[in-house]
């Protein structure tokens, strides 16, 4: 280790230090979850545009 130039070493290490400290302000990824986590209940009314999907005739027409 003799001959190491501390100043030069400190300069070289800056990008490494910044890669840890200067983090992007976002995170993204994927995560496995139990099947129950994918259930969703939503409110609707009998005459809303989505109600047509309860009608076999409408679904038949779409097919």
């Amino acid at each position, binding site marked *: 280790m003799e001959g190491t130039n501390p100043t030069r070493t400190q300069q070289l290490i800056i990008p490494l230090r910044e890669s840890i400290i200067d983090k992007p302000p976002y*995170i993204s990824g994927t995560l496995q979850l139990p099947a129950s986590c994918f259930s969703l209940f939503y*409110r609707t009314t009998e005459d809303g545009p989505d109600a047509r999907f309860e009608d076999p005739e409408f679904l038949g027409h779409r097919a």
Partner: protein
Amino acid sequence: MRAPLTYYRHINLANATFDELEQLTQACEPTYFDVIKKAKTKKVKMNGPGKMDSGSFSPLLVPVQTNLMKIIRDYHFEGDKSRQTLKIELRELNVYSTHFHSSLSTFEAQQTLRSLTHVGKGSFSKLRAEALPNKNMLGSLVIIFPTPHEGGVMSLKSRAGHKRSFDPSPETSEPDITHIPSIGYVVLFKDVEHEVAPITSGHRVTLTYGLYAEDDASDRPIPTEEQQVSESISLLANQPAFHDAFAALLENREFLAEGGMLAFGLMHNYSIRNDFNPVYGALKGSDAAVYRTLRALGFDPVLRMYYHEWEPDSVSKTLYGHAAVFDKVVDFSDWRWQEQPEYIDVAEFVTWTHGRFVRRDDLQEDEEFDPFEGDEEVVWVTPVTTFNRKESVFSSPNERFTLTNVAYGDLCLFVGIGKAGERLSYPKVAQYASEDDEDDDEEEESQGSED
């Protein structure tokens, strides 16, 4: 005339059919926004995502019961923020679709809508930055369900120039061999601009939550279960950047040409007992990113207690500008200290307890600095932190009185780097303890044979 009946419908977003998703889409409130086209002369209304406010739906997914809390906490609440708590509030559901309201049954309705929007063009969102009206608001969490769709890639851009495109559907659309479904998630902190590209087919269903920070005045210990889940979290956000920077540094023959030791101050607080092994699996955020990357590159990073502060200061006199590194939390009161006329001999204690001497970078220019044979120079990539500080009180009597001393140690991560061209050949720090043990064994064996 009676009011229309209100009721709740259920959908399983892990395997919903096209019609079920279309029905959910139709239950949403449409959103539109203006786009100026053709040399800024024509304003066109475009489809935004369908929107449902939090009072109109109820997901069984509760982020606080998943690893999402830990992922966000570990990433954002580093250093001084580590005592803050995270709160998550459900905000809205969105559906990006190509069929938004396009199946209206009457021709008139379709024509009316067509005049307002580009029916059949996939919905998308314009570039925007998250507004943070509340000072405690950190940003937002977007969960993307594995519903079949194409397009809808999310683009992220920070003011500092970080950029990322994210589309979880290749990973989440096909459950792996375990058949456990997955979600995609995006956490947006302050000043991130983001947009969603137009959907080209199917439905992209998302939930958006607001994220809030609150100060936690309690001095709560870290629950064991909270420590244990870190390893289950896949790639950490700053891992690729650290990997690239470190790989570039290793290629540079100017950097530690003769090899050396790198050290990292930890950014999180951990439950530490005498054995550090449980901490490796519990490393979080930046600490985990550094540790995992070094391991992936073939190095052997180790956690060590770094004793570098003393009370009174004169205790460290015999260390001559060095700090002491141990592979355990050290009880300095184990030693029968004897006050010398002017000082106590800490260096002798360090040698006796198989500690290592490292040069304190802040004292190497000091007049009193005197290199020891076999000491090591350490390059601190990130400074020592005191989140995992242990103190050991010990007394040192002399003929007249007893002095009370304190040694302060901080848990840090160390890694040995070989000389240029042989970066992996540096004697591994982890070998020290075993080498010492071997030395002891050899001594014992030789004593045994003498007997």
